[in-house]
């Protein structure tokens, strides 16, 4: 059994009178892929935004366990959640630095480490060797990821010129360059063709097994969800209606109801 990585307990989020998430509790584990599914408007992206600090939750606790330390995510600022607690995310509408090259995108993701090595630019200005070593290491890591994605040839071209599928994968690689403990993916398979979708599955499995981190993903593509998830949490109207292994969830009558609607009374 893997270790507990993220513990969401009694999370709620209200926007004025609208309750987007109500009393949501679930757990995500290290070295597992946890899928967060549900119909449109169920509150999945809101969970992500609470988790990564873009929203302050109205109530509840979000606890991240990382190498023996615990972080109360609901009290932290968004950039500290990413840098200190190690929660990286991608966006539903891809947010790459489109005017910068692929390599630069991956180097910017290692900003915290490089900034420390450059001693807030002073050592960097004079090109001291600790900084140059750190920069070399950062480039090596970026090169590694570009190799994995098969995009090494395009390292020095701008990210905005990539195809849709490649942009998705580059955004995942960029998130991975921050050395996260938990990677949150918001609809990574949206808009991908079956071939790209299969490549994405392989990439996500590789991240789980080789980088040994936990993944949390929002996805509508059931082939992806059922194919790679270790655990599925189903939301509907901000409430959790099911939580378990993919095959358990698929058979759950509440899930079927949420997706397909209430069967008419009297119908078999």
């Amino acid at each position, binding site marked *: 059994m893997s270790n507990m990585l993220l513990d969401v307990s009694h999370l709620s989020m209200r926007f004025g009178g609208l309750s987007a998430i109500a009393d949501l509790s679930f757990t995500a584990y290290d070295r597992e892929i946890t899928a967060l599914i549900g119909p449109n408007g169920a509150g999945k992206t809101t969970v992500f935004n609470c988790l990564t600090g873009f929203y302050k939750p109205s109530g509840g606790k979000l606890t991240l366990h990382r190498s023996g330390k615990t972080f109360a995510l609901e009290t932290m600022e968004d950039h500290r959640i*990413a840098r200190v607690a190690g929660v990286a995310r991608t966006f539903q509408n891809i947010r790459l630095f489109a005017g910068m090259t692929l*390599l*630069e995108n991956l180097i910017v993701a290692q900003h915290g480490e490089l900034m420390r090595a450059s001693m807030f630019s002073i050592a*960097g200005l004079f090109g001291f060797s600790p900084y140059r070593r750190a920069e070399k290491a950062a480039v090596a890591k970026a090169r590694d990821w570009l190799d994995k994605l098969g995009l090494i040839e395009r390292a020095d071209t701008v990210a905005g010129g990539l195809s849709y599928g490649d942009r998705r994968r580059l955004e995942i690689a960029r998130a991975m360059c921050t050395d996260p403990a938990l990677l949150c993916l918001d609809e990574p398979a949206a808009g991908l063709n079956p071939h790209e979708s299969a490549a994405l599955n392989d990439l996500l499995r590789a991240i789980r097994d080789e980088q040994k981190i936990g993944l949390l993903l929002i996805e509508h593509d059931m082939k992806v969800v059922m194919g790679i998830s270790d655990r599925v949490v189903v939301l509907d109207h901000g409430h959790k209606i099911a939580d378990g292994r993919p095959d358990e969830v698929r058979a759950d009558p509440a899930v079927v109801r949420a997706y397909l609607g209430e069967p008419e009374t009297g119908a078999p």
Partner: protein
Amino acid sequence: MSTEAAAAPDRVAPRGIAILPLLKESFLTAIVALVLAIPLVGFRIVESNGTTGLATRFWWVGFAAGAVFLGRFALGIWRGAMPPRAVGGASWLDPVARFGRRHARIVALIGLVAALAWPALPFATRGIVDLAISVLIYVMLGWGLNVVVGLAGLLDLGYVAFYAVGAYSFAILASDFGLTFWEALPVSGLLAALAGVLLGFPVLRLRGDYLAIVTLGFGEIIHILLLNWGSLTRGPNGIGDIPRPGLFGLVFERRAPPGFTTFHDFLGVPFSPSQRVVFLYYVVLALALMVNLFTLRLRRLPIGRAWEALREDEIACRALGINPTNVKLSAFGIGAMLGGFAGAFFATRQGFISPESFTFTESATILAIVVLGGMGSQMGVVLAAILLVLLPELGRQFAEFRMLIFGAAMVLIMVWRPQGLLAHRAPSLRLGAPPR
């Protein structure tokens, strides 16, 4: 018309000219001109025998409307005859930009040699060297503002505020506290940086238009402060007798003050006022080169990449653990510091500063240099600074049309080359060798 162009963007053949719609449009334009011209041109306040009265000149209104009609018609004909082209498409400047990019080192070297040799060239009179100093001050300011606008993408309409803080800091430190040029210069830069950070705090949450308006206000506040804080800035009278910089204790005067040696005595050459101008030229050249190296270096550091990342997408920056507060404040602070250096040099060169020198027009000029040159392009800033300083100088008799020329130039640039004269972004680091 626009849908037609969008449907066939690649069509090169001239569009046909539909005379009737064109006539109709010209007529409508003329009507608008007529309505506008009646109050603006049609009436005139005349003074006679101490009383004011209203005189009309409706002939002029007719002329104005007629001119607009003909102008609109001619424009339509011209547009119809010209092949349509995509906005931001190829232009004759592209090969120039490409050449500059490919041979950046050679171009920079030629520029450097030319700049170093400038005062020694046969046509370089004192006035021409002085003009070159003005150009270099604007180049410095352009490079400084480029950090804020070009790299970090924070539109700053009040950059002159930092220029003013630098200049006044220098003037006060040098004349009231007796610091020399080389001592007061870094302090003025730091004070300007402080002003930049102070401005940065309240505008952290603002972007785009909102930020532009607040920075515009900040520029005006500094201007008003300079006018009214008489005990420190001496108000509208300005500060005079600002000490000139010396070269290792040598002064550039006809007669040395007690305890000093003059430059011409030291070298045993006859005194000439142009010695000081040439010296100032080399000082500002050295400062400008330092600013250039500094900003180029910063761009390749994590901080520079964070600025550019912030310009591209602030939310993504936060998701990657970059603290946008620090990134913005550092951009404001460093941009302001560079402006402060330029201001300090301006003060020592003029020997006299007053709030008159730090108006919104200056901010607009500096921003025009950055935008015209191409956001983020060091070379483009030089080119634009030369253009914008030289053009008004060449046509001194048209001085009052300076802003008009600016406006027209900006509109033309926006139409033909929205990315600026020499816009090109070189990656801050590469995996492979630069492509040939």
